[in-house]
């Protein structure tokens, strides 16, 4: 989880990832940030994220992202 937060802060330090839960809905992470995020997450956690996973439910909060990472790691 710490690794995830570090990656997030690296991409966009302005957001408060501990409490924010509408990162996508409120546009706090834009499309390019998502691109970079996906690339870094794939490298850091050895998972493969596809377009199907790119839904707000998976990216609106750090917790949601962590859940997705766990899920994808199992496959």
């Amino acid at each position, binding site marked *: 989880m710490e690794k995830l937060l570090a990656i997030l802060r690296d991409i966009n330090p302005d957001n408060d990832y501990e409490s924010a839960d509408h990162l996508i809905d409120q546009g706090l992470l834009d499309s390019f940030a998502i691109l970079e995020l996906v*690339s870094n997450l794939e*490298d850091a956690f050895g998972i493969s994220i596809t*377009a199907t996973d790119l839904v707000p439910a998976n990216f609106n909060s750090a917790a949601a992202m962590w859940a997705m990472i766990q899920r994808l790691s199992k496959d």
Partner: protein
Amino acid sequence: MKYTSLFYLTLFLPLTLLAYQLCPQRHRWVVLLTASYFFYFMASLTLILYLWASTLCVYAVGLGMGRCDPLTHGRKRLLVWIGVGVHLALLAVLKYGPFIAGVANDVLALWPAAPHLPVFKLAVPAGLSFFSLQAISYLADIYQGRTKADTNLGRVALYMAFFPTIIEGPICRYEPTAAALYAGQPLNHHDIAYGSQLLCWGLFKKMVIADRLSPLVNNLFKNPAESGGVLAVLAAVACTIQLYADFSGCIDISIGTAQMFGITLPQNFRQPFFSTTVTEFWRRWHITLGTWLKDYIFFPLSMSPRIKALGRRAKQRHGRRFGQIIQAIIPLLAVWMANGIWHGAGWNYLFFGAYYFVLVMLGLIFEQPLETLAARLHIDRKAWPWRALQMVKMAVIVLVGELMFRASDVASGLAMLRSIFTGWDWKMLTDGTLLQHGIYGNDYMVLLAAGVIMLAVDICHEAGISLRDWAARLRLPIRWTLYVTLILLVVIFGAYGEGYQPVDPLYANF
């Protein structure tokens, strides 16, 4: 039938609301569907067959995909491409046929013996570009598992045909719109009141501002050679304000109408002229098109294995930044070309797409260097002086883009831009030239006053103030005076009927 006609506002809409409310809940969707088909028939007559064909196509293909075994990925992919392909083919033939044939003929003309392709222009059903996007989004959502295929043909049909959205959008997604449309919630006073207020505001923007600018814009762009210098700037400003007032006005009418039925449609405009960057502008202008392109072109492309691999290699060689840029180029190019041609069949639309593609790429490439530079010069990029400067920069960018968009072709658009520098004459502002292009002194006065009102409302919205809430808290006599005044402003100052030239909605040809 037009959203601004007396027939729609005082007959069709009230009768539909009445029928909806009197109908039992489980059949209310039938009222909406019937009304939608009636509306569409009045607008496009027999072309409704295309809408029906499109609806049946997505219904059948959707069900086919739903029945696919999750493991037979190949079959599912074939189906989705058939469904999408049918709609793209429809668009290609109906909307782009003449343009493609024209270009092909120009190329073929290079070989003297080559045949000449026939160019036939077919009638285009209203809203084709909008309901095609909705159809494709439904199929893509099923394919990617975002939604389940719907076995209920009525619900699918209503999603495709809902009369407030079919002509000009907003482009809605299957979830949650289809369910909301089908639910048949009873009308309630709050939604009817708020919805009709938003509708009146939309009418104000469209009829007092946009329709009043129409003769001026038409005049200036019809004779580009005579619209140089000051007039070129006027043309850019006028066509931009006209487009914003027309499109956001019609959208407000649509969202307001839907709200009267208790249905919430997605926002399509969010005070776009307060943007400080190009990407921000496109998150505030024609929002539903932007999110459609993002979800169905940008992410699928940029997340595809090949593009991801490209990006990864670039990242390994030259760092994160470069990797991100390389990964984004092809998807962005696809998005902007799609944006351009979606708007119309013409080189100026492609130019428009290319223009923003270049600007977005530049923004992406120079984001980091600019940030470092600003930090070194101790410029606070969040403070209002910088942001104001950025808004002015954005205004110029948007004005240039809209001028090219509206010009009859790329050459005349560029000529008008050039003339701003070569043919500038301050005298044109005062010697009466401005009054010789279709609108007169009193029109300019109305435009100024109405423009100020529109700006004030947008400022309130940007600050998060809900004007409808604020008005609702006023005492009844004051509140009613406000509402009646808005309606009177539309009735008296609307540019309709005698003394004005008839106007076609700008986005209705799409």
